[in-house]
């Protein structure tokens, strides 16, 4: 029974991965980049699922980890010649992990809403520091830099194209997924789920719950930082906007939309949300132009605030698919 399910899982995994590998061939440049961004936001959302879905903690600090990954990568890319991809990863991960350790140490003493608010305050503190420390961070304008090459020193060096960058990001996100999946099934991951189920009982059977939470936040922050590094490489800039807590909120929304506690769900959520937003933002100008072709002037239609229908769809998903898109699809498949 379980062996059969494992086989089905790996078959589905292989099919989806193969589809994702060939998908950009049929797509124009813009959508290739869009797909890369979906994967990066999916990685951020997946990293926060470790806390939301597995440990039962909602973090609003992920923008700080993401942002520090960005600025860490920026530091490496601006100070070393030629810019090195691996140093960008290293600096970004160290920056994100350091901040995650700091935030984890202070915030995991608190629970529920108090944990969420503490992480939010920390992310805002880092936002203010980055925003005002203009000399080092470029302040409001952020930092711009050139993209490193995909290189292994002494072996090869290829400049990134949209296509190779997409594959690189796909490889990193797939690798991260496999690592996170393994962690969630390890003894450590089972303790996190036990904390989510019944924190007091977990402590009573001998687990130092706070220490487990600290390590969970650090892992989560590390992968959020990895997403930040990828975003910096993709867009060739680091900006304070990405440290702002709203980015953490978006990660939470992707989790809820896709289904928490599944790792893949948050990626599905990110894809659904970003595609819907893109589609809706184009829909109203399109409708207005169609209408005017038929001699119909509909003032204001082109500027219709498309975030309103997006919000309504999100609320509908929360109400009618409380386990998210993935949870809903799974139930349908099992029926």
């Amino acid at each position, binding site marked *: 029974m379980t062996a059969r399910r494992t086989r089905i899982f790996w078959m589905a995994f292989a099919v989806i991965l193969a589809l994702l590998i060939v998908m950009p061939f049929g797509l124009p440049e813009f959508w290739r980049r869009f797909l890369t961004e979906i994967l990066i936001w999916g990685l951020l959302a997946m990293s926060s699922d470790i806390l939301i879905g597995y440990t039962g903690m909602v973090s609003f600090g992920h923008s700080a980890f993401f942002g520090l990954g960005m600025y860490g990568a920026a530091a490496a890319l601006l100070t070393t010649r030629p810019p090195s991809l691996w140093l960008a990863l290293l600096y970004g991960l160290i920056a994100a992990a350091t901040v995650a350790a700091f935030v984890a140490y202070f915030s995991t003493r608190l629970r529920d809403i108090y944990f969420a608010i503490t992480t939010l305050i920390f992310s805002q503190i880092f936002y203010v520091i980055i925003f005002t420390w203009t000399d080092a961070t470029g302040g409001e304008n952020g930092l711009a830099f050139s993209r490193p090459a995909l290189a292994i020193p002494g072996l090869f060096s290829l400049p990134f194209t949209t296509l190779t960058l997409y594959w690189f990001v796909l490889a990193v996100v797939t690798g991260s997924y496999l690592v996170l999946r393994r*962690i969630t099934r390890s003894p450590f991951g089972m303790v996190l789920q*036990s904390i989510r189920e019944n924190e*007091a*009982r*977990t*402590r*009573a*059977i*001998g687990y130092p719950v706070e220490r487990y939470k600290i390590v969970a936040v650090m892992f989560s922050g590390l992968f959020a930082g990895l997403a930040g590094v990828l975003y910096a490489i993709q867009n060739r800039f680091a900006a304070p906007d990405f440290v702002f807590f709203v980015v953490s909120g978006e990660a939470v929304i992707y989790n809820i939309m896709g289904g928490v506690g599944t790792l893949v769900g948050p990626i599905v959520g990110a894809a659904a949300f970003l595609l819907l937003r893109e589609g809706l933002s184009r829909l109203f100008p399109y409708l207005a132009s169609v209408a005017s072709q038929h001699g119909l002037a509909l003032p204001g239609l082109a500027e219709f605030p498309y975030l309103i229908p997006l919000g309504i769809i999100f609320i509908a998903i929360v109400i009618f698919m409380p386990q998210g898109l993935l949870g809903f699809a799974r139930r349908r498949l099992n029926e």
Partner: protein
Amino acid sequence: MAADLSSAALAAAAAPVGAAPVLRTEDLGIRFGGLAALNGVNFAVARGEIRAVIGPNGAGKSTFFNCLTGVLRPSSGRILFNDDEITGLSPNRISRKGIARSYQITNILPNATTLENVRIAAQSRRHGWSLFTHHRAFRDIIEKAEAVLATVGLAAKADELAANLSHGEQRNLEIGIALATEPQLLCLDEPTAGMSAGETDDTIALVRRIARDLTILIVEHDMTVVMGLAHRITVLHYGAILAEGTPAEIQSNPRVLEVYLKT
């Protein structure tokens, strides 16, 4: 006379009186605002003993367990476990020293399987920080968990969600979780609460079986069960020890009869 002697010898064999106590409290007290929920409790239990703690509702029995297991920090006094002071330690530290408990109100992982409930408890002693190996790869933990489920009579329900077990089964799972941490001292807070007569008999038989390797403190309201099970009984009343002795002594103690057994 001869009969008296042999029953005394039996009691002595079962409860090694005079052995160094495994657990001791000195002048233990805790206050909730103006209420002294425990007050000057001097308590000792010998290794291998089954000790019942009885008393009317609100006497402080659960509060006593909460102090022993670190859920509550005593306002005064000391708790010594194997002559080691454990007063005010966190619940996880106390668990690691070898004290486990079950709860008056069922306290399990409802959305995990029965097996996982005891497996996670067994894992608390080994491999808990293992990050990159699948938890099912640790056969020693699984075997320990399966052995515990067999002991508490839940082997057939291993793959069932704990939430789907009957109330009586959940009460026994509660004991299984505590046992899986391999304690020296097991505190059972009304393990038979809400059970049918048949389930109660099974659970009491279970307590007798596991008592061969452990020291047991048990809070229990059913007096026939208490009298048949305990080596000694401690009576709490308004947070203080009212009486202590063998079941026979307690049954004939006029103060106990007055406050407790008369109803």
